[in-house]
């Protein structure tokens, strides 16, 4: 079972709430995904309006919310969004997202680290979205983040595991859970990172913009579960060629 900041999760698939064609589709997809943690952009929550459809659907599902700071371009803005989230949604959990780059929406490592330090000090459970940079992940861990969320590819790109080799290093080194966020486009890719030993994945675009989001959510759930079980069962080693006889050292056996 996965544990982040003393909270246990039986599903290792986290999902999102954006990009769906309706609040009802979102709700059905989240249910099908069996996800227990969904992220929600604070900038999409309308203040003072009771009838926020997304929020009331999520409320009905009794699901853990992971508000995010999307739209923030600096540590200062992210801290502001996090405080707003804690006040509005009554949770100290925050997905820290700071991407000033408007083209590929890549996270700013400097501002992310600064904001993480501040938010941890203020008692938040911080899950930072970050580049697949092993040293940055260590620094975020040292800052007190509850998990790290390195990207597999630019967010929303569905391009799969472009950062695979670096994710390997991050998974190997981390002592907090590693949640692979962003860029996963197919169930097979989610399964592949779970086989690598990732603790969880966050998938949104690949589900929300699929032709049949509800079915796709269920398929991602299966893939994540299978990947994890394969990891736990201990994958057999793979190599490019079959094991050859030993032409180089045969002479040692010759008398």
């Amino acid at each position, binding site marked *: 079972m996965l544990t982040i900041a003393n909270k246990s999760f039986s599903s290792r698939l986290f999902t999102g709430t954006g*990009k*769906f064609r309706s609040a009802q589709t979102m709700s059905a997809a989240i249910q099908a995904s069996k996800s227990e943690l969904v992220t929600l952009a604070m900038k999409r*929550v*309308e203040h003072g309006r009771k009838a926020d459809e997304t929020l009331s659907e999520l409320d009905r599902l009794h699901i853990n919310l992971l508000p995010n700071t999307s*739209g923030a371009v600096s540590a200062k*803005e992210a801290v502001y*969004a996090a405080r707003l989230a804690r006040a509005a949604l009554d949770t100290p959990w925050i997905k820290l997202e700071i991407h*000033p780059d408007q*083209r590929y929406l890549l996270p700013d490592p400097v501002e992310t680290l600064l904001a993480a330090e501040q938010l941890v000090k203020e008692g938040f459970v911080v899950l930072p979205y970050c580049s697949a940079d092993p040293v940055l992940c260590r620094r975020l861990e040292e800052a007190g983040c509850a998990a790290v969320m390195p990207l597999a590819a630019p967010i929303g790109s569905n391009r799969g595991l472009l950062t695979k080799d670096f994710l390997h290093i991050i998974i190997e080194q981390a002592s907090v859970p590693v949640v692979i966020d962003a860029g996963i486009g197919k169930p097979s890719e989610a399964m592949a990172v779970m086989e690598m030993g990732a603790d969880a994945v966050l998938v949104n675009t690949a589900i929300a*913009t699929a032709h049949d989001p509800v079915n796709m959510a269920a398929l991602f759930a299966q893939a994540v579960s299978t990947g994890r079980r394969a990891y736990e069962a201990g994958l057999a080693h793979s190599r490019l060629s079959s094991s050859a006889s030993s032409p180089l050292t045969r002479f040692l056996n010759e008398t």
Partner: protein
Amino acid sequence: MRVADYLTHLDWDDISMQIAAKNAVDVRCALSATQPTLDDFLALVSPAAEPFIETMAQQSVQLTRARFGNTISFFIPLYLSNLCANECTYCGFTMSNRIKRKTLSPDEVASEAVAIKKMGINSVLVVTGEHEKKVGMAYFRQVIPLLKSFFDYLTMEVQPLSTLDYAELKQLGVDAILVYQETYHARRYGLFHQRGNKTDFDYRLDTADRIGQAQLDKIGLGALLGLSDWRTDSAFVAAHALAIQKKYWRSRVSIAFPRIQPCTGQNDPNITRGPSEKQLVQLICAHRILNPQAELTLSTRESAHFRNNVIPLGITHISAASQTQPGGYSNAEENLKQFETDDSRSVAAMATQIHRSGLDTVFTDWLPGFS
């Protein structure tokens, strides 16, 4: 180098000829490019691409859904004034037009805000007219903070200002600025803009750079389609958007496609034929294929039927129930309009239509403390 300098080095006639020379092979190459370039855009916007419009639309839909999801964002224009210190031959607000002039008082601005808020709108495009003295920074210092207390996201369409003024507007609560070049053909620009500060083509061309330097969240670009050859003007818009995005990477870019609409006193023979509806679809898709990140806006200038069909193909932001005269939401008074809108459906009716297209509506997409 400033983006404006780069644009002045692009040769209008050369680009026109390149567009005219594109053939079906060029279009096919553009459609299969993994990272389309400006040259691909020239093919996509050329007459040779018209038979490929269905393929273009399909690509455009895929790119838009991947980036923006199954959603459409709503905004509404709020006209603060119809005063103008420019003579522009195609505009209902032009200074020589004998129309009733009006600038909203802070109380009237508040009434408008209340009326707009009632429709469920949380993102407003503030349109100011172009009168530096009477509708300038002193006035904005009064009304922008007032509007920001109502709406989370404020966009402004205002006469070109200095970088310093843009920085101050940002402080006051403005998130995005739109300045349309109208036409990128310098000589023809002179035909249409005959008196006032707006006659300065180069200063206007440099405006997006100044907005970028002031680090506004969003920079809006566009040409008024019908002032010059729309394909070439659109190529300049595309080039402008790419270059602005590259240099001012913290800012988002939005593009609009206004086609000239009838207005009071408009009879300028220099106005050319803008794109047909089919060509407008081609243009929207071409922009989307070149620039999957750009926000594309479609206003109520277009008809309801056209909007119903085109919005799902690549548009990300729409207005609804727009009034183009100051005070139009709280106290509708005719004869002050900048131009006639075509699609007059209410916000609620428009939202129903969007849902019918299998898309969700977004009214809130910003926190007031950002930017």
